[in-house]
């Protein structure tokens, strides 16, 4: 129960940081995808289920199509390709998952837009996606270093042992 509440509070805290703090920066720094970085770290280091839940809630609250796709692509990549919990695996997972989700999002968005004639899923511009990807990788690196430094405390909340 504590983990769920902690995860919710962390979710809203990081959402506030991204929407109000990071977006207030000028230039490309404003494009740092804080919520996606956090979701990927949670998915890789804390648990796939928590990561999926994170992205689903993000997709639900923000209407973010990429987050919705990451909730589906992420577990497959972690279980099949990036199975270790190293930093490099996380960076690879982040780059591949985000690229795949963005490409699918753009393709599906375009197809839906053309078929339905409505802008249900507007595709992100490529340059914006590329910019986010370039910020996602160093963001993941910095994020995982930060997580490692407080891992003992955070992991105690996320791991099954703490509830046994």
């Amino acid at each position, binding site marked *: 129960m504590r*983990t*769920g509440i902690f995860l919710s509070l962390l979710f809203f805290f990081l959402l506030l940081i991204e929407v109000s703090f990071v977006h207030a920066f000028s230039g490309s720094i404003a494009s740092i995808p804080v919520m996606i970085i956090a979701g990927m770290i949670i998915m890789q280091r804390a648990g796939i289920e928590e990561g999926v839940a994170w992205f689903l809630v993000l997709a639900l609250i923000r209407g973010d199509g990429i987050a919705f796709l990451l909730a589906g692509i992420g577990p497959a990549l972690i279980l099949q390709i990036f199975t270790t919990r190293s930093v490099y695996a996380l960076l690879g997972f982040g780059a591949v998952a985000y690229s795949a989700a963005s490409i699918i999002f753009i393709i599906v968005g375009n197809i839906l837009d053309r078929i339905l004639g409505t802008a249900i899923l507007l595709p992100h511009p490529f340059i914006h996606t590329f910019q986010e990807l370039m910020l996602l990788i160093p963001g993941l690196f910095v994020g995982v270093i930060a997580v490692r430094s407080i891992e003992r405390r955070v992991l105690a909340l996320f791991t099954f042992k703490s509830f046994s």
Partner: protein
Amino acid sequence: MPRAWYNTDRARAVARRIGIFFLVSILLWLCSFLPGISSVFHRIESAAYQAGSVLGRATSRLFANEDSLSAQLSSCTNRLGASTILAASSEANAREVEEWRTLMGYVSRTNTKGITARILARDTPEESVVTIDRGANDGVQAGAAVIIGDGALFGTVDSVATTSSAVRLTEDPKSAIPAAIIGKQKTIGLVTGEEGALLSMEYIPQDTLIAVNDIVVTSGLGGLLAQGIVIGTVTNILATPSAPFITATITPVHDAREWTAVLVLSYPENAL
């Protein structure tokens, strides 16, 4: 028989965690729409946004390239120029308002009738003549006294056009104003212009009692000039025993070059 994956303790714990996460997140999200709670959220968001803006501006300055800095400098220089013009305009307006206020104070205090005017142009320093924006159509008469500030003589109307007039300043060498020392209502001399902004009072009889700091006013005996209009104060007296007259140097009360608003005194039609 092994238990199904969803029937394990771990699966149940994960489901419980995720369920609570979903529930709490959705509840928090829905609560953020309530008026009381949303104001709290907005305050936190506002504080975070301000912090982000400050940091963002600082980092953008740190990482700005030379072109950007040059553009910023150019923009700031332009803004400074515009601000300077605005400040100068505001100062000029404030000064003009103050001048009008002083003139109106003089009019209401002395019950004087006059025509307010604005100085349009100034001639060369050799001939101290200014053009004002009032003329015959407004009732300006040649020879009328022109006042500045709280009642100091600025000059006399030299010539009148339809919509403008030329005013000869007291400091002009061609100007000759019959003057007296305040309190002594007889003409004792003529005030004319000297070098710079100083005036000279000539033809003062040798037996006249005159001292430094005496106030010199118009005597009222010359054309349309009323008596008692302040010209200036005596600052120096040149008396030669063998000469029939004394000459005094007069300093005007106001520097005529600093004023833009004047009052042309009006006179009855039959005054001429």
